[in-house]
């Protein structure tokens, strides 16, 4: 398949690995921000191929995982309202909140529908005029423009039964928060590919400039990831941190202007709570005043009650990269993809799920 096969070529991979091995003389610790990167790294066995000087950590780039329990509870409470249809992306339904999950709420009678695009949610709203459709909007800058587009479309069509629960999160502020905490010492970051397609590579410049940390934006195929690691190694060896792009077929320094405009028209930054990390200023997105009538939180005043964190679950630590799934007592015993305790085991982009499915503990 074009645009995929070329980026999985074994001969190119071997060359990149040889170059990385040759260059990586001093020990370096890199973090891949994206859950999508974590999955690809495990799926293709990339960690095994890197020299022992390179240590790879998994970052917080999984939108389902970083959704705070209080927000999950809110989404579930909304779904449980009579005459509400909750529309959501697939990974969300299984994530356990404090008391329930969307999946359980559905089994108990709530109308929860999995959609593949925000436009599907609009279609549900058109077909069910006597009910309210609440789109559970999670995701980073990648998905936010599509949700903004759905709001604009709903306004144009005068659809008065479409609402958005905006749980969107912005990525540069969380990187800043992680670096400011000083908990994790990093030499380089594999920066998000899809997010940077929207926001561009320039929002990462502060990382190289202010923190002296190497940056390379990567795609999700093995060649992309190996190339980005090679770029990071070069920056570290040359002691010249900057922002490289290993994903030029998708990412430009300024990003996608049209998507950014859409996002900016509909949303404005707001404080947001991140699981395991806590509140971070200006790291969320809320609907602007002109679009308030689409805001599910304002339209339906739900009280989900007190929030509980699952006992023994260390997803919060894993998201901060201070622990790995292997450090968790529940991993693969009490917490499995079938019976997940925390979100990192549920989401297809979660660290625990990737470790579980692709057998990171296995030494060949």
């Amino acid at each position, binding site marked *: 398949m074009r645009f995929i096969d070329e980026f999985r070529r074994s001969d190119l991979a071997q060359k990149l690995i040889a170059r990385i091995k040759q260059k990586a003389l001093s020990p370096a610790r890199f973090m891949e921000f994206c859950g999508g990167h974590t999955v690809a790294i495990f799926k293709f066995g990339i960690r095994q191929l890197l020299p022992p000087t390179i240590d790879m950590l998994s970052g917080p780039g999984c939108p389902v995982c970083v959704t705070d329990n209080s927000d999950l509870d809110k989404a579930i409470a909304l779904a449980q309202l009579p005459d509400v249809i909750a529309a959501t992306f697939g990974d969300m339904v299984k994530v356990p909140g404090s008391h329930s999950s969307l999946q359980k709420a559905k089994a108990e009678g709530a109308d929860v529908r999995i959609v593949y695009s925000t436009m599907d949610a609009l279609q549900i709203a058109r077909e069910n005029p006597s009910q309210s459709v609440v789109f559970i909007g999670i995701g980073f800058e990648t998905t936010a423009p599509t949700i903004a587009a759905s709001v604009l479309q709903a306004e144009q069509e005068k659809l008065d039964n479409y609402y958005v629960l905006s749980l969107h999160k912005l990525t540069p502020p969380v990187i800043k928060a992680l670096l400011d905490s000083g908990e994790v010492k990093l030499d380089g970051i594999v920066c998000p590919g899809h997010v940077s397609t929207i926001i561009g590579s320039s929002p990462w410049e502060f990382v190289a400039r202010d923190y002296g940390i190497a940056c390379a934006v990567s795609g999700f195929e093995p060649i992309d990831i190996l190339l980005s690691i090679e770029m990071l190694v070069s920056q570290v060896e040359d002691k010249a941190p900057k922002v490289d792009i290993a994903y030029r077929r998708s990412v430009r320094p300024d990003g996608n202007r049209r998507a950014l405009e859409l996002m900016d028209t509909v949303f404005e930054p707001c404080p947001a709570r991140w699981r395991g990390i806590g509140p971070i200023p200006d790291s969320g997105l809320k609907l602007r005043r002109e679009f308030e009538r689409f805001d599910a939180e304002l339209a339906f005043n739900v009280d989900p009650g007190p929030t509980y964190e699952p006992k023994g679950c260390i997803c919060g630590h894993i998201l901060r990269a201070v622990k790995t799934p292997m450090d968790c007592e529940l991993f693969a015993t009490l917490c499995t*993809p079938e019976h997940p305790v925390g979100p990192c085991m549920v989401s297809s982009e979660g660290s625990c799920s990737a470790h579980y499915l692709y057998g990171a503990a296995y030494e060949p």
Partner: protein
Amino acid sequence: MSRKILLAHGSGGKLAHDLVEKGFLPAFRNPLLAKLDDSAVFEFKGRLAFTTDSYVVNPIFFRGGDIGKLAVCGTVNDLAMVGAMPLYLSLSFIIEEGLPQSDLEKVVDSARRAADEAGIQIITGDTKVVDRGSADKLFINTAGIGMVAEGVDISGWNAKPGDQVLLSGTIGDHGIAVLSQREGLTFSTELESDCAPLNNLVTEMLRASSQVHCLRDPTRGGLATSLNELARQSKVSIRIVEDKVPVREEVFAACEMLGFDPLYVANEGKLVAIVAAADAEQLLAVMHRNRYGRDAAIIGEVREEHPGRVVLKTKLGASRIIDMLVGDLLPRIC
């Protein structure tokens, strides 16, 4: 207006008789069924294989097949996977009231054609009609009986270190073909389900070699799940090579788009065979000559260490564990 199945079609009365006499008997014509006694009676001497399955596929018509063909092929294949020669089949229909009769006729017709190809006779059956909403259009339950020839011993427990793993063709065709026609997820593809009876392929393989140790059709849960089952039953490990596993371009593309791994996507006309290394090449040649084994390949081998594990050598030369399918396949969110 098209004729619909009514509750009365399942009542045992006049309409039900009409359905049997006009709908089922001519299609599945054979003397054992035609007697219409409460049970079919037949002579038998030897070892029997006996299996049952239910079919609830949605939608009931898909590119490359329908629920009728699927029910016959699925049951025939379960018999074939223990080396049995399929003989007789039962077919029970659970129909939602309001199903167009023409749909039922189409399903019955394709079940008949699949049975003819497999050389199996449908000798007993049943029809129930339930209220609208109590079933989704049409469910089919089957049972199958086959004969296991003297000396044939094929089982998931028989894999031995050193054996080779053969796969009869491309994986994921059925799952993606059906998924592409699901409501709310229509994407355009010419891909057809691989739904097919594999008993003739198995017969040819068993004729060529007495060293076929295990056979399995990787249906729900896909190739990965079948290999895990075999590794656990036989207490061996199985090592397969990613590059050797045939995957159609369309299936690969759909999987990339939906966030699936073809190793976990369902097949309905494929088999995995674990065979003695000495006979592997010869069996591969036999498979290539059958229309359902044209793309067959040797995809890996059985090893002694790490019993119960399935390991994949990735395109990059690294190794990773392949587990059974966990949960449902859900599309990724970003």
